[in-house]
């Protein structure tokens, strides 16, 4: 039985007193942004990020072309881009400081408020 904070993580028993937890989170990428992931729509990152911001930082290491499109140069989420963690919009939580746990699914989507006016 894993401790609650490691729910969804994989554990490796390395012997007495040492257990390694690997907490994968998965990004769901769709539409235009997939042009910058070589077409991948599911991207796991796995060095146990604890916040959305940390997970994004790992995502940028894998696919740098996503970064400037999702956040501005000050690292803030663009106005008309939304990020959902397990279905919850991080704008209703703690934005990029929203905590995540192993097994979380993070989805990046354009918001309904964006787009070119008619």
């Amino acid at each position: 039985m894993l401790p609650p904070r490691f729910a969804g993580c994989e554990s490796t028993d390395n012997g007495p007193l040492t257990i390694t937890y690997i907490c994968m989170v998965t990004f769901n990428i769709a539409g235009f942004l997939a042009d910058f992931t070589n077409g991948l729509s599911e991207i796991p990152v796995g060095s146990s990020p604890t916040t959305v911001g940390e997970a994004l930082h790992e995502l940028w290491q894998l696919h740098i072309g996503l970064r400037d499109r999702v956040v501005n140069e000050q690292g803030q989420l663009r106005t008309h881009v939304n990020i959902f963690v397990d279905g919850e919009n991080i704008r209703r939580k703690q934005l990029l400081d929203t905590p995540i746990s192993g097994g979380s699914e993070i989805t990046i989507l354009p918001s309904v408020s964006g787009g070119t006016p008619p």
Partner: protein
Amino acid sequence: MPATSHVSPQAGDPLLLVGTMKGAFVLRSDASRKNWEVGGPYFPGRAIYAMAYDPRDGRNRLWAAVNSSYWGSYLSTTNDFGSTWTEPETYGVKFPEDAENSVKQIWQIVPGNAAEPNTLYCGIEPAALFRSDDAGETWLLVKGLYDHPHRPQWQPGGGGLCLHTILPDPANKERMHIAISTGGVYRTDDGGKTWEARNKGVRAQFLPPEQRYPEFGQCVHKIVSHPSNPKRLFLQNHWGLYRSDDGGDSWQDIANGVPSDFGFALEVDHNDPNTAYIIPLESDEFRCTPEAKLRVYRTRNAGESWEPLTNGLPQENAFETVLRDGMAGDNRESAGLYFGTRNGKLFGTKDGGESWSAIMEGLPAVVCVKTAVA
């Protein structure tokens, strides 16, 4: 997405670069400038507020400022007149971290002085100037302007707080004018290290009467300078029409006989510094062509008088608006002038405005028209 067509210009062909709220178009013609082939739409759904052509150093490079409300703003180039455009992995025009600011929109891209063939400038919202010295590979914030003590007092106009016009001086690579809404005109004479406000005589009608001629803070909509006489400038203000004969040191009111001195679009005849064109709009509230007539006004005496040019332009029910970068001239002996409207119509003349014809209709709202020669 719509099917995209392309043009294949030959050397010497005239080009029109048309930026709209929903994409870019590249038009080509031949020496007759009669018929225009259309390439595009490029970047469908993106607002293209700025386009430019850079022929320096043997390049045939078009630039487009691509603005997405979702994904931010970046610069894209094509070396084949639109068949292929770059989509950079990371954006080049962005504030350094310590500037504590972020790019909202790119409003202007301009090649620098011919003596510096790898230099380009870019104007953005919030009002700031960026410079590249490696043909657009990398960009740096022009700190001399960004750190100007006036900057905290600049205010956004209706289009936001934007640096929308950049005029490198073709005769002096150290000199440049820029225009900010709402900040006014600024000039550098040392390559961008220092900047001074150049708004003497320009009215700020939105201020109380005793404050209407401030050092800075005017809502300048557009400035143009003459290519071979760069001390001759014209200025279309948010109420007010002006000329300078001394590089912007002072401005004279030249709104003589125009139906409105409110407007955006402004161009100078490339062959005659006394000839300029405007498209007046009726009031800051209505912002449409007066009396619902689409009229270009021309002066041939540096603003002492203006005449309406109407031949071929709709004179009934023409509720049109032409924005600050929506009109451009070419440098042919018989002057070509082109403009696009918010209602998606593109008009042109090849006789200095004596007669006009529709080039395209049904475009998305036009925000940028530039001329070039392939």
